[in-house]
């Protein structure tokens, strides 16, 4: 077990670094919080589930050397569908519809990027706009509601352990095998790393990249479900900050914007780091507006620092 752990740590240094940074931030938060208890930790972990889920999806697209700017809109679409629908109908039916809608958007994104070959940035920005419009049609003003038991799911304790924490550990473990050992996982890393050689060695590049967008939207839909549990109501603009935060968290978690590298466990660590940083801001007495500044600066640093480091390393090698 320890050798396995050690081996995977050596293979994924960025993910290990991400967990180290996350631990630092969490410890700082615990030290600065007035009285950390199981309840506050459970609540705070529950609030982080949406970002964790959407970051997993963003990471898959970034591995494929793409970007998905529609995830915030997809989360909002899932949110308004559930909040509007469950007020007068079956919650489960609307949950299913929300996930279906998310997958549909992902299929459109995937088709546009992988088959029509549009630049992912503009294509997903445009579909994001259309999805936001659709969400506004469904729920022009914030409102709607969900059953109380539904809102309490993220706060569930399984024995002494918060359900949110279990999800954050189990989801990466469950996804590890298909991503690292299955044909699709290998194809994804290959297509993101070097399209030409992936193509010439028989990887179905278009299908692989297209599927990454479907998965990204699927996870955005799941994130939207958790977001609805937390918010307890619907709002067509609720997803806004998640687009940037998912990219920032993915990069923090070791995903490379140039493609071909990234892990689900890293994504979880990146998302937790970014959102515990927000908690830290509140703990030191800054107001919520600062989280915009921090997210942006963190994203720039997370991309720029490795860039600059690798450049100096290359210089050293050349000299």
């Amino acid at each position, binding site marked *: 077990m320890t050798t396995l752990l050690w081996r995977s740590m050596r293979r994924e240094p960025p993910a290990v670094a991400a967990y180290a940074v996350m631990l630092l931030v969490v410890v700082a938060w615990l030290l600065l919080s007035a009285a950390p208890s199981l309840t506050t930790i459970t609540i705070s972990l529950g609030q982080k589930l949406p970002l964790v889920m959407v970051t997993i999806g963003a990471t898959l697209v970034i591995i*494929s*050397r*793409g970007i998905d*700017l529609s995830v915030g809109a997809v989360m909002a679409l899932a949110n308004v569908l559930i909040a509007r629908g469950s007020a007068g109908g079956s919650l489960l039916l609307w949950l299913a519809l929300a996930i279906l809608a998310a997958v549909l958007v992902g299929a459109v994104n995937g088709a*546009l*990027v*992988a088959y*029509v*070959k*549009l*630049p*992912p*940035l*503009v*294509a997903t*920005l*445009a*579909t*994001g*706009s*259309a*999805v936001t*419009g*659709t*969400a*506004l*049609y469904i729920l*022009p003003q914030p409102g709607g509601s969900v059953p109380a038991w539904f809102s309490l799911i993220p706060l569930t304790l399984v024995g002494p352990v918060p359900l949110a924490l279990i999800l954050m550990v189990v989801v990466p473990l469950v996804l590890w095998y298909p991503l690292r050992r299955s044909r699709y996982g290998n194809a994804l890393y290959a297509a*993101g790393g*070097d*399209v*030409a050689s992936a193509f010439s060695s028989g990887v179905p*590049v*278009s299908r692989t*990249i297209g599927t990454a967008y479907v998965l990204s939207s699927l996870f955005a839909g799941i994130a939207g479900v958790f977001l609805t549990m937390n918010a307890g109501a619907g709002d067509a603009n609720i997803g806004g900050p998640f*687009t*940037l935060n998912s*990219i*920032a968290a993915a*990069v923090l978690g070791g995903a490379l*914007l*140039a*493609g071909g590298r990234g892990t689900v466990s890293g994504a979880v660590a990146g998302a937790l780091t970014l959102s515990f940083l927000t908690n830290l801001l509140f703990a030191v007495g800054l107001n919520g*507006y*600062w*989280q*915009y*500044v921090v*997210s*942006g*600066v963190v*994203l*720039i640093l997370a*991309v*720029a620092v490795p*860039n*600059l480091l690798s*450049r100096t390393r*290359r210089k050293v090698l*050349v000299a």
Partner: protein
Amino acid sequence: MTVSSSTNLPDPSPTPPDPTGSKVRASGRGDRGRALAPFALLLVLYAITVAVAPGYLAGSQVGSLLQLTALLGIVAIGQTLVILVGGIDLSVSAVITLTNLLSAGALAGSDANLPEALAIALGLGLLCGLVNGIGVVLLKVPDMVMTLATMTIVTGVAYILTGGAPKGASSPALTFLVQHRFAGFLTLGVVVWALLGVLLVLALRYTVVGQDIYATGLNRRAAFASGVRVGPMVIGLYTVSGVCAGAVGLLLTGYTGSSYFGSGDPYQLASIAAVVLGGTSIYGGSGGYVGTVAGAAITTLLLSLLQIVGIPTAGQNIAYGVVIIAMLIVFSRGRRAA
């Protein structure tokens, strides 16, 4: 992008990753038919608008449309330049909101504060653009990610500086300049836009910098190797984009009379739409500002038409998305056939 490790040539600024690797570009400025297409589309759209609402033939209505188009057109100056070199500026919306809020706050309804408001709007725009350029060129952050990050930071700064409550108002002189119709339909914004637009078209066509911009957009590495100072130029273009957005923030203060959060939001996608509809390649290197003028007019007219027909914001968002994707598909098809 993997070539760089084997050569000593410093990559001045990496182009955004292309997931498919099938990048085919039209050479030069495109053929005449494609250059005329946006204007033909504009005429058709205008004919439809007039058919639905005959009032749009009147000079005053044309003046209103021009006024709105000018605001978008000025933002699109920066967006065109940045897209021509293969970049993109997602932060224009946030910069417009910030300068709108702070210029209204600085003016506080008094003409005496106009120089200060002008300095704040243009200065902040310049600063934001400079940060974008430095991040893209020196820190090597991909254009889209860098401008997305500044967008978020600038939004946060706007909230922090105003405490979340917009205050202040336009001054009489600014309102007069922005809203008064000279010769029946010309407003200050239109005049400023026309001047800047003519200058830009001439500069792109007849100056060395203009040539360098197209060369950089077509092949950044080759442009750098043949002596184009790519880095400083890209920083300069992002700065221009920031200043344009700052100017629009100030004009928006005069146009709306005050300021509010999210006032710049529509301009992010709209400015990209104007550039793409105008026939400029999203990969850079081909197109120009003449097309963007038509693109800005199409975008504005399309929104007006949707409002006339009674389609709310929701429908406008959907229309934006669908139209941009449709145009991208049409243009990328044409490019591949060429």
